[in-house]
């Protein structure tokens, strides 16, 4: 499987990690919020934290849609360049876009106007911004992660991976740590101020595709190619416990705003276009709280919202459907 396919899915469901609103129990079935006519293959979708707008990435453009009335607000065209990553920032006012050329662009989500440009030098398959907005981290090609000072637009550190490229990145809620998983199966935890390695998690035998910190930063959750979620002590880098392995690799993770539950997306490693069950686990007990394993479910983006709902998009033919789960 190409890195791109994994990363697009691994970028799934991470938008709402650091919010503080409590997540409600999830007794209900998914509610269909919108149907968007895509007309071509949608590679990935980002949803704003308030659940009002969606960024729909397809071909060489990103459409920004109002979810409430399935109305296209804006279309951002990238010409010969191809977007490889997108996510909303700053309560949905900005759209962060990574391009195959290595550029990272910040756009006004309403007007589409480009506000800022960084040259990452390598395709930024995955980009994360710290909760306080100070740091921006991007996969920096083979064996590197680039850490940028968002205020100055300067690269603060080039963070080395031993082998392979970064698959997912996650900042600790206080922004002092950055975790990065690599194709070499290790997870690296860096100090963002110094760029020094705090620890390297070497205990996992397969690649981790999804990372998420709990709100107090003590535990790092890792969704692995070995079908399980592992709970890692962020201070020591040791795997403290693992949730029951399922039948497919975990390809994305998201922590609920209150840290009490974690949503995991699974997919058969040998079926890149296969279904993507979503399971929600209790972070404390490791028990399964909710499960949507419909064979028709092919999720391609979304995240926890600030009100605690989980909102995600699925592809059905040329139609994009946006669902919410409370």
């Amino acid at each position, binding site marked *: 499987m190409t890195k791109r396919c994994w990363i697009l899915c691994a970028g799934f469901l991470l938008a709402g990690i650091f919010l503080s609103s409590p997540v409600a129990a999830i007794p209900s079935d998914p509610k269909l919020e919108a149907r968007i006519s895509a007309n071509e293959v949608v590679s990935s979708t980002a949803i704003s934290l308030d659940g009002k707008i969606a960024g729909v990435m397809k071909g060489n453009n990103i459409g920004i849609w109002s979810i409430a009335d399935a109305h296209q607000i804006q279309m951002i065209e990238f010409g010969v360049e191809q977007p490889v990553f997108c996510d909303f920032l700053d309560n949905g006012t900005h759209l962060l876009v990574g391009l195959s050329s290595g550029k990272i662009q910040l756009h006004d989500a309403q007007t589409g106007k480009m506000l800022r440009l960084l040259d990452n030098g390598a395709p930024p398959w995955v980009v994360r911004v710290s909760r306080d907005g100070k740091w921006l981290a991007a996969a920096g090609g083979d064996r590197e992660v680039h850490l940028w000072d968002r205020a100055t637009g300067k690269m603060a550190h080039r963070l080395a991976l031993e082998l392979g490229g970064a698959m997912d990145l996650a900042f600790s809620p206080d922004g002092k740590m950055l975790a990065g998983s690599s194709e070499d*199966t290790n997870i690296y935890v860096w100090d963002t101020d110094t760029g020094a390695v705090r620890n390297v998690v070497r205990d996992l*035998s397969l690649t981790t595709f999804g990372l998420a910190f709990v709100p107090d930063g003590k535990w790092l959750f890792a969704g692995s190619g070995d079908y399980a979620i592992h709970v890692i002590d962020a201070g020591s880098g040791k795997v403290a416990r693992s949730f029951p392995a399922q039948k497919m690799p975990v390809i994305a993770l998201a922590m609920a705003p209150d840290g009490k539950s974690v949503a995991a997306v699974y997919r058969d490693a040998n079926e890149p276009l296969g279904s993507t069950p979503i399971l929600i686990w209790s972070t404390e007990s490791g028990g399964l709280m909710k499960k949507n394993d419909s064979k028709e479910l092919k999720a391609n983006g979304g995240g926890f919202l600030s009100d605690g709902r989980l909102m995600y998009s699925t592809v059905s033919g040329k139609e994009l459907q946006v669902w919410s789960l409370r």
Partner: protein
Amino acid sequence: MPRYQLSRRELIEKCASLGVVVAATSLPISAIARIWDESEVHHATPPNAFGPFYKKHSPQRRELRMAGDTGLPLTLTGRVLDTRGEALEDAKVEVWHADHFGKYDIEGYRFRAQLPLEGKGQYSFDSVMPGHYPDRVCQHIHYLVSAPGHKTLVTQLYFATDPVFEGDPDKNFTRDPLLISRELVRPVVLTGDPKTMHAAVNFELCLERL
């Protein structure tokens, strides 16, 4: 008694100092040695993407093909050397690839191995021709090669017989966006009749010094 292994350049310079060889040109011995050295330089094997299916702790073995495995029997051979052409006898070579149907074994270690070297940096293993993974264009085998004092090599081997190339890998190798070097597409020697056909490929692994 300790064994000393001289490089070709060191050998020429030593012989010259002993009068065993005499320069017949106006060039100094060091320049001749340098030219000789440069003529012996091997290209480092181009790196290629690591991919998401590496699995730690593969068993050490050279037989990856088991009785009853579907697919064209394949034997891979080659040497591990540095850019001066010197064999790296203490190298570690790890390989992994999809099965005939293009599927990777995630739960176990089928078609995954650490290869024992056979002296003079030689390696060989028996497997089956990998199928096409659904999200990749070309058939390929992943290699991870390391040796003390050398830059670790992560690369992939491709097959000139891959139908994707339509018989012309020179022209068509770029059909796989991850295949950035024609050098990684190796000729395939097919032997036997259609019922007993066997494929053989040689792939030299050349590491850069640190």
